[in-house]
């Protein structure tokens, strides 16, 4: 069975290592914070100027001066710090953030990503996405394997305007976990009960399957 969005987030959370500084994008990536493994301590960066982002506030405790990059009210954890947007993107650019998780409309087998613009539709802007993908050392994309029309979002090359080139390291979809390798998407894990064949049929880009592909355990 294909993973739920929560399960995608849960799977990505297993990529977190103790001591990581992590930037989580809007959507599924935000949910990753709910599944940080026991014993793993990570610090969440919000690119509007915060290290040490905590959970959403309890009702009545929200502070309009304290939001995340998705403009949601948030809290801080102990040891947090605030800074301006230049320092925030400075630390991103300098590779100080260990892991970036973000959503995408399309990912290519070369690791290109498109997630900001659909020609003919109103463009809202790239926000910080282009900075993040251009600089992060380790980028994981969280997305559905196919779009609402059932078309693959894992492509030989992106059709949509690019956000970044050759930057994605791994893709976690509702169907599986795939690494971007020199030869294309290498299938690392399947969602429980999802066959390699199904993944193959929904992956337009080059898929590499080596040996038996393990099933995720939830």
């Amino acid at each position, binding site marked *: 069975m294909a993973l739920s969005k929560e399960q995608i987030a849960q799977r990505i959370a297993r990529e977190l290592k103790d001591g990581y500084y992590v930037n989580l994008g809007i959507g599924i990536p935000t949910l990753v914070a709910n599944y940080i493994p026991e014993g793993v301590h990570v610090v969440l960066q919000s690119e509007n100027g915060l290290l040490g982002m905590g959970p*959403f506030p309890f009702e009545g405790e929200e502070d309009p001066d304290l939001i995340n990059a998705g403009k949601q009210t948030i809290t801080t954890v102990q040891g947090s710090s605030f800074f301006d947007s230049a320092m925030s993107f400075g630390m991103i*650019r300098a590779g100080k953030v260990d892991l970036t998780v973000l959503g995408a409309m399309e990912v290519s087998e070369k690791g290109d990503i498109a997630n900001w613009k659909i020609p003919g539709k109103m463009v*809202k802007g790239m926000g910080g996405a282009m900075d993040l993908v251009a600089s992060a050392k380790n980028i994981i994309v969280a997305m559905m394997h196919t779009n609402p029309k059932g078309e693959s979002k894992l492509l030989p090359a992106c059709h949509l305007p690019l956000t970044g080139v050759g930057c994605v390291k791994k893709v976690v979809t509702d169907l599986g976990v795939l690494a971007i390798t020199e030869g294309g998407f290498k299938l690392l894990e399947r969602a429980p009960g999802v066959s390699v064949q199904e993944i193959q049929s929904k992956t337009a880009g080059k898929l590499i399957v080596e040996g038996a592909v393990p099933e995720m355990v939830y």
Partner: protein
Amino acid sequence: MNKVVNNADDAVRDISDGAVLMLGGFGLCGIPENCIQALVKKGVKGLTCISNNAGVDDFGIGLMLKSRQVKKMISSYVGENAEFERQLLNGELEVELIPQGTLATRCMAAGYGMPAIFTPAGVGTEVAQGKEIRNFNGKDYLMEYAFDADFAIIKAWKGDTQGNLVFKATARNFNPLMAMAGKITIAEVEELLPAGALDPNEIHTPGIYVHRIFQGSAYEKRIEQLTIRKAHQ
């Protein structure tokens, strides 16, 4: 050295049609509410606004859009604004979308007297079109220019009569960067203190960058995305 002006009207008195403005804030967080209202009241037109976002329909820069005062927006993200969309699709408004880190760093560059900076953001994308690309240590970077703004209009938490500023939480965002970057910098603060009241170690923006300061009033501080958790979650 007293930089205090009476109010927002006084602070924006000489902003005229066609001016290039920087406006601090991220979404509706840390925006110069009083000055935006004064600009709407003043009715100045044809403005170019450098600001990370464009407000919402009935607040922030959205108010200036509604009264058709903005000719061009330079932002990283302009969603959440129907009037903006209407004007843009009708060709009544120009928009230049640039990566958020590039926006921040181009402000900083102006404040630091650096005419241009290098960033990898946008390499290989349409953002790179027409820009100089340069390779350092095997990686491509775009050369991006410092902004050149007539006025920077920002909001701080506390300030003193000499223009020293302190920001609160994530309301800091672009404010200290734009403060450094404006030819004339106008700061509105929630609390205006006498010189010497702020600890010199804790000042985020030294007064040298600030030309006019006043204590704002009636801050709404609207929340764009109220998100809470249940007590028993």
